[in-house]
């Protein structure tokens, strides 16, 4: 049996620098070893700690499963900790990755186009210069491989209002539209559960 195919990690942009160098090294006479932080690990760190996304949201953006994202993320932290403690320099390179971009459609001339440089926001159609553009999102949630919905239900403990659980959003952060109380997952052992 052949092993399960490796899933390429999707990253949005290259980092603005290619590494970090320590200074004030007292040992080794200024010679520093290096730690190679892969681009996918940089991206996981950026999504989780800079953009403050949770692991599930970050995993969808990188087109991998949630456990894989957590593995990449913990590896990134491990490497950075090694670099800080042992005074090594960090070089950001390598990793099996691909780039992807957002797609837009123009309502004026009916064309589709993408945005290759995410630093700049697209405001007009590159073909007809019309500003009547729309963010085009192909329906590829199912093909992403990541689980994007479940059958769980969020329930309000004070009034009993129920709503389908939104994936990636903790139930306790959901506010009941009926009475304004925080909600919990239905069927889980909460203290005041039904």
């Amino acid at each position: 049996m052949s092993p399960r195919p490796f899933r390429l990690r999707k990253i949005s942009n290259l980092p603005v620098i290619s590494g970090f160098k320590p200074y004030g090294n007292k040992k080794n006479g200024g010679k520093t070893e290096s730690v190679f932080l892969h681009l996918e690990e940089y991206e996981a760190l950026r999504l989780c700690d800079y953009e403050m996304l949770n692991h599930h949201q970050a995993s969808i953006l990188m087109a991998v499963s949630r456990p894989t994202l957590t593995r990449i993320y913990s590896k990134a932290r491990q490497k950075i900790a090694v670099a800080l403690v042992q005074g090594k320099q960090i070089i950001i390179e390598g990793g099996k990755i691909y780039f992807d971009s957002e797609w837009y459609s123009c309502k004026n001339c009916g064309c589709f186009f993408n945005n290759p440089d995410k630093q700049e926001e697209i405001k007009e159609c590159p073909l007809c210069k019309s500003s009547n553009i729309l963010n085009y999102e192909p329906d590829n949630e199912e093909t992403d491989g990541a689980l994007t919905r479940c059958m769980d239900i969020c329930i309000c403990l004070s009034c009993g209002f129920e709503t389908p659980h939104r994936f990636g959003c903790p139930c306790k952060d959901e506010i009941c539209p009926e009475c304004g109380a925080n909600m919990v997952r239905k069927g889980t052992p909460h203290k005041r559960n039904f």
Partner: protein
Amino acid sequence: MKVAITSNGNSLESKLDQRFGRCGYFTIYDTETKGIEFLPNPNKDAQEGAGPASVQLVASRNVQKIISGEFGIKIKPLLDSLKIQMIVLKQPEKSIREIIDMLNN
């Protein structure tokens, strides 16, 4: 800035080719100097790998945008990493002259 347009002939009256890798000609249009160049596509009858080979040809001309009817699955990640913008225009009746007029507006 240079724009590549896929065409099925080497004149301004020829139509937009709906394929990228196996199109007849690439029209390289320079928006600053208004210069137009027609490149015959050597990968027109290639069995496979026409897309990546065409990307190489077009990228060697420092093109920043490509207008075509469709882009294959191998080409999209390539162009993304080269930071070339893809423009998909599903109008096979449009001539090269009309498209260049749209770009100049």
